[in-house]
């Protein structure tokens, strides 16, 4: 395509975008909804990660060591557990540390304080608190610790006590992930189809124009070009509007959400991800607009 025609195509695309005001508004509105849905999926995905993380951080299994277990053996056990790639962290709480923490926590409770004085020596065990990357791995990790060479020093692994809670949480996380993925795919398909159909309708209104262009000798690219330019404009405008609407939505939801999910900070997430987020929205919008235009116009070019 010659350079004169390249600029001509861009000019015609912009001019058609302006002259078909209502159609442009309709297409931008539908695409804005599409992009708000896409953006919301992005935000909800982050929120789900935060919630999952929060719960995951609260879950661990504790390994209690026998009273006579030497500290070197406890540290060796820790080293051994950490070698497992499924293990995220292992926190060592020594017998003394556990005792100090216990005393500190109950210093206001007279009954316990007097009982401690009565007992005199430290009755608590050295402990290793193990966290896994994935909660479904806890049974394996617990079994590995129980069967290891260090098992003779271990009093108990409290996985059995937490088993039900851990398993329930694992199944919830896996259900959320699966249904989230399914919802995202389902919504994305609907959004793509609705957008495609809207653009198909706008192109349908230009059916006669396309036919005439073909009959007076317009090449396919010369005819297609302005519609693609329009598709780009639809994408950019709807991306900018959807970013604004998402901010508004996040602002409203965030204040309520923080009260029961303190670790969530959606506004900060939005602000710190503004540019990638904007480019993602523009990218999806432009791709939707261009690909839809490209496919929708194809059948009218067969004159």
């Amino acid at each position, binding site marked *: 395509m010659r350079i004169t025609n390249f600029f001509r195509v861009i000019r015609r695309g912009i001019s058609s975008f302006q*002259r*078909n005001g209502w159609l442009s508004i309709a297409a931008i509105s539908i695409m804005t909804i599409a992009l708000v849905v896409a953006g919301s999926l992005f935000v909800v995905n982050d929120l789900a990660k935060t919630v999952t993380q929060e719960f995951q951080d609260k879950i661990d299994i504790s390994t209690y060591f026998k009273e006579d277990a030497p500290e070197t053996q406890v540290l060796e056990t820790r080293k051994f557990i950490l070698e497992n790639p499924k293990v995220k962290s292992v926190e060592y709480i020594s017998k003394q540390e556990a005792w100090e923490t216990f005393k500190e926590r109950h210093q206001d409770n007279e009954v316990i304080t007097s009982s401690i004085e009565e007992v005199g020596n430290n009755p608590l065990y050295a402990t290793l608190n193990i966290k896994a990357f994935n909660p479904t791995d806890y049974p394996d990790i617990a079994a590995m610790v129980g069967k290891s060479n260090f098992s003779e020093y271990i009093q108990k692994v409290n996985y059995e006590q937490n088993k039900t809670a851990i398993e329930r949480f694992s199944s919830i996380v896996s259900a959320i992930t699966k249904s989230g993925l399914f919802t995202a795919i389902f919504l994305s398909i609907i959004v793509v189809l609705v957008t495609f159909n809207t653009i198909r309708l706008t192109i349908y209104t230009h059916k006669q*124009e396309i036919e005439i262009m073909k009959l*007076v*000798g317009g090449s396919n690219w010369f005819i297609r070009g302005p519609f693609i330019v329009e598709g780009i404009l639809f994408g950019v405008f709807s991306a900018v509007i959807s970013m604004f609407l998402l901010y508004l939505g996040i602002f409203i939801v965030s204040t309520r959400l923080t009260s029961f999910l303190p670790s969530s900070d959606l506004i900060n997430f939005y602000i710190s991800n503004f540019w990638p987020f904007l480019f993602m929205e523009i990218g999806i919008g432009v791709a939707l607009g261009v690909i839809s235009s490209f496919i929708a116009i194809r059948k009218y070019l067969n004159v």
Partner: protein
Amino acid sequence: MIKFENITKVYPKKVVSLEHVSLTILDGEFVCLVGQSGAGKSTLLKLLTAEEKPTEGRVFLGDTEVTDLSHGELPYLRRRIGVVFQDYKLLSKKTVAENVAFALEISGEKGNIIKEKVSQVLKLVGLSSKANNFPQEISGGEKQRVVIARALIHEPEIIIADEPTGNLDRINAQEIIQLLLKINDLGNTIILATHDKEIVDHIEKRVISLKQGKIASDKIGGKYVI
């Protein structure tokens, strides 16, 4: 020169539109293609612009075998032909001048040259004063003159006019035919498909009559016979 070589066109459901039609039109000729509705006039014209492909036979425009062109080559063929439609086919969102300029824009012509040519051709069809009007703001006769201007702007070798007076009153129809005769005098080949007996008899040019997809008669200085 335009040449139709043993053309047969059968549409789906075995509807035969043209049957073994052979025809040659010389450069600079004015040919009236007459016949009743369904006789095959429009199909013959559509074969020339490659809107339709023949079931059998070949079509030539000069040295180009139209029936052999790929999809990508069609725009170049169509720029050699100016088409005047009965239903105008004007772009309602474009002004008269833009509608005419459009046919040149697609070939990548420079802006200042387009402006100059549009002004010349609008003057030729007598529409200089309506250049900035939209199609819905002008009369039927004026619309048809815009279509002729659009067909003329890229200086095509031939002009095809498919029932150009079908939607016009007598006076406007006469004006359009006069315009086509004037263009023919300038050297362009004109193919006029019509079933307006009065016009055909009046202009006394070559008349080709089609009947049920076959050539019934072909006479120079002929009359409307079907």
